């Protein structure tokens, strides 16, 4: 099974084409094919992660060409962790999406599902590749597919996505330029090879510029404050099932690239000694957490509130990266996982409310708690986790981030992490009050609402219970998977 690392993106890529071809003849077959492709990739990813846990990193050389000549795929703790996460969320979102798509965009199912598969192929490619340029290729595949599926929304979606296209392309260009500079300086594109060469030429200005460009590029991709301006509109106007798929994983992959650079290419030593780039990321993130949480409080549109909340939460991840110490990085990685579950759950709930009641304005949610019991129960769990109350998983990412802040002696960051929990409490409890306590004014849309159909409710409940389970077993994940990643860097 040496091909494990390659099977994952390739199977997704193949099913993307098969889905499109078959879909032109029979629309009803697209969904099963999509599901099959995703399940295959997920099973392979889980098998891969188990192998990594047993035997350590798996390498695969395309065409048998060893690096630095050929393209290398690496399945290590970091990429194994990310692939399983991305594929698991993808599986739940796709199961969830069928009914939602049928209601919102029934005639566009064939292109939607093939593009979803293509995007997932791109995302897993980004995660698994050990080659800097190959990463760029997959970055473009994933981004172009994502632009397309997000634009299939209501009238405002294409306009919103245009901004994303422009910003995203600029981001990709920055990354490519950075890689170009690295190639100039080192003559290599293989991550492991570059990491070996770099320490000898740490003084080189090319490397400083390359690093800066790559960080800016990824900051755009992951919507790091203040480069987030494309995100709220896109998350608001795209089809709800698409947002439920993209919000938990897309920006996280940008964060993954940053962490990969930190862990496998530049190494933290360089980042802290030559150029205080991590510290800058940390400060931007700290400002972003506060500013975006306040923006979330100001929103009346539920989807927009969640969008701003997403920006604030990705800033948590960035803050953990910015701390550049073991606890900070564990906090960042754990928050990638935890937040994927929380935001996946929340966006699916938002879609569920839209599916059953056609509502997205928070003031109209009054009384929903009575009529959508399970959905709102899941919302309560996710909200409590976002505030960071144990045993929900949100508490533990906060715990590691606070430990990281204290280790770094950075009190401002510690206060920001803690204070933002209170801001989260403000905007989530406001919704909870509305949903449970304000009596419905006998609005027929509310009184007629019920929990969404099982196909949509099941993923919501799986994610909600996952939030609690992840909280309870967080130490297993930290010691088995995250600590080996961190030990690579520090």
């Amino acid at each position, binding site marked *: 099974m040496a091909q494990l690392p390659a099977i994952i993106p390739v199977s997704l890529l193949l099913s993307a084409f098969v889905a499109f071809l078959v879909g032109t003849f029979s629309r009803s077959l697209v969904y099963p094919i999509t599901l099959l492709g995703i399940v295959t990739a997920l099973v392979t990813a889980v098998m891969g992660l188990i192998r990594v846990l047993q035997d350590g990193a798996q390498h695969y050389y395309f065409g048998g060409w060893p690096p630095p000549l050929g393209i290398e795929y690496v399945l290590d703790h970091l990429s194994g962790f990310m692939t399983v996460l991305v594929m698991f969320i993808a599986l739940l979102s796709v199961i969830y999406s069928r009914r939602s798509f049928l209601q919102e965009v029934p005639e566009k199912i064939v292109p939607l599902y093939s593009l979803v598969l293509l995007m997932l192929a791109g995302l897993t490619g980004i995660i698994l590749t050990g080659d800097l340029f190959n990463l760029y290729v997959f970055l473009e595949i994933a981004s172009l597919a994502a632009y397309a599926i997000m634009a299939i929304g209501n009238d405002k979606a294409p306009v919103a996505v245009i901004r994303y296209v422009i910003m995203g392309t600029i981001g990709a260009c920055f990354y490519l330029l950075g890689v170009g500079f690295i190639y100039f300086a080192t003559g290599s594109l293989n991550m492991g090879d570059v990491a070996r060469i770099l320490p000898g030429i740490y003084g080189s200005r090319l490397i400083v510029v390359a690093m800066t460009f790559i960080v800016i590029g990824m900051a755009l991709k992951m919507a790091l404050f203040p480069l987030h301006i494309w995100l709220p509109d896109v998350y608001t106007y795209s089809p709800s099932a698409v947002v439920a798929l993209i919000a938990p994983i897309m920006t996280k992959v940008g964060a993954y690239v940053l962490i990969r650079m930190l862990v496998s290419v530049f190494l933290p030593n360089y980042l802290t000694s030559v150029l205080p780039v991590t510290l800058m990321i940390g400060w931007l993130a700290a400002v972003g957490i506060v500013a975006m949480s306040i923006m979330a409080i100001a929103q009346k549109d539920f989807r927009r509130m969640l969008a701003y909340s997403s920006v604030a939460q990705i800033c948590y991840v960035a803050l953990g990266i910015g701390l550049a110490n073991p606890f900070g990085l564990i906090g960042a990685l754990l928050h990638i996982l935890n937040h994927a579950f929380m935001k996946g759950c929340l966006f699916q709930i938002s879609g569920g409310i839209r599916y059953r009641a056609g509502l997205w304005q928070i003031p109209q949610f009054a009384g929903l708690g009575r009529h959508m019991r399970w959905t709102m129960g899941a919302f309560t769990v996710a909200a409590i986790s976002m505030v960071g109350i144990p*045993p929900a998983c949100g508490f533990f990412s*906060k*715990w590691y981030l*606070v430990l990281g802040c204290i280790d770094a002696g950075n009190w401002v960051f510690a206060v920001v992490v803690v204070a933002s929990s209170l801001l989260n409490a403000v905007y989530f409890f406001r919704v909870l009050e509305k949903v449970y306590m304000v009596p419905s004014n006998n609005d027929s849309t509310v009184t007629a609402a019920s929990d969404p159909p099982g196909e949509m409710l099941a993923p919501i409940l799986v994610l909600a219970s996952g939030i609690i389970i992840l909280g309870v077993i967080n130490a297993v994940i930290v010691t088995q998977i995250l600590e080996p990643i961190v030990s690579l860097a520090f």
Partner: protein
Amino acid sequence: MEAHSSLKPLVAVLVPLLASLLIMLSGKRPNIRELWTVLGSVAMFGIVFSMLPSALGSKYPEIVLFTISPGIALAFRADTAGIIFGLSASALWIVTSIFSIGYMRSLSEEKQTRYYTCFAICLSSAMGIAFAANLLTFVIFYEMLTIATYPLVIHKESPEAIQAGRKYLAYLLTGGLVLIIATALTYKYTGTLDFSPGGFLSGVVEQHNLLPLFVLFLVGLGMKAALIPFHSWLPTAMIAPTPVSALLHAVAVVKAGVFGFVRVIGFVFGPTLFHEIGAGNMLAVMASITIIASSLLAMYQNNLKRRLAYSTVVHLGYILLGVALLSPSAWVGGLVHIANHAAMKITLFFCAGAIYVKTHCENISELDGIGRQMPITMGAFALVSIGLVGMPPLNGFISKWFLGQGTLAAGEGIYLIVLLLSGLLNAGYLFPIVRRAFFAQSSKRTKFAEASILMLAPLVLTALISLFLGLVPDGIFHFYSLAGNVATSVLAGAGR
């Protein structure tokens, strides 16, 4: 200190959690739902009580579950300090359950299933707090308690209730977050969080870091313990149904904060270190200010429950004063007062609840002649008022006696004056209610009309328990021996 492996502390935490699940599932059948509440409370009390003998013999049941953060496990240990808190909370849950049934049914309140479910979760969290073997486990249950109490505070769902809920969350979530920082800092300094009698900070942490660390703990725990200036959520939270005010806002929640101080001072800092950094004096002064100021504030409250809430703040101050003074008898007085105040204050809240159900009066000015209408209720009220003032033969006298001795043993006579003065002030805000009830004339309250037996029996029982603990301080529950045991283990070698 000896520990032996036992499932009991874990079971004590899980039983109410299981009960909450069963309560939720039988929401459509009120009788079965209430049966689960009562069964859960009796079972929990049984388990906690069964751990009493081994705790008295200094053999602590302990269970270490799984790791929750590198180097820190989710672990429970039923040591003597934990038993004091756990026993008083679990014993009073039984009476509160019965009182709740009477209260909620008489008022035919809505959403009773949510009420009983959250109540059980609160008790589970309280047990987790009592038996937590390390600071992180403590923090986890401390935060759970905050959230689980919220639906009870806003039970009425009126705009005022929602407002009170917001205030409650703002205070207690902030406290919890500050506590998390304090915990993380402790972990960074020492690499461990396990409670150990006499503390684990001494010798490993630089002296100048200790006072800031304690200030963080002070804010984090002071919020829940309603220490002035962090107290104002408590009177506001009185909008909750009376059984909630009785058990949670006089026993479980606020005592969790006070109990946190016991843990942090006795089992994290250790008395010697705590005194050296000057934190003892700081806390004692804050507690004294709390005692005097809220006694005065209590006098100005016309709403009965608000007056009782301020009185709670006063008595939490007693406990903190005792703990801060660090002499053995002060500790005994403070710890015994955790149980004694619980039994007394819960009686007064039960009385307030019974009065409300029967007459819908919330204000003291409306209580003229209520003693003629509800003589048993007001008799219990009068009896327990004597105890809260600190006069024999009630249990309040016992705590105050030891606290007083403790101030002298610590060589801080000034605090004795605080205690004596506050006794007078207590009388000043409690006795007028009794006088009004029995001696003021009112034409409409002449007929005997008590609340239902489900409410009357609990309040008579808790009043009698208060009397019993005053006559036999070490009876049945052995609170006195337990407190002495804690004081010896924590203060051994402290030389004060």
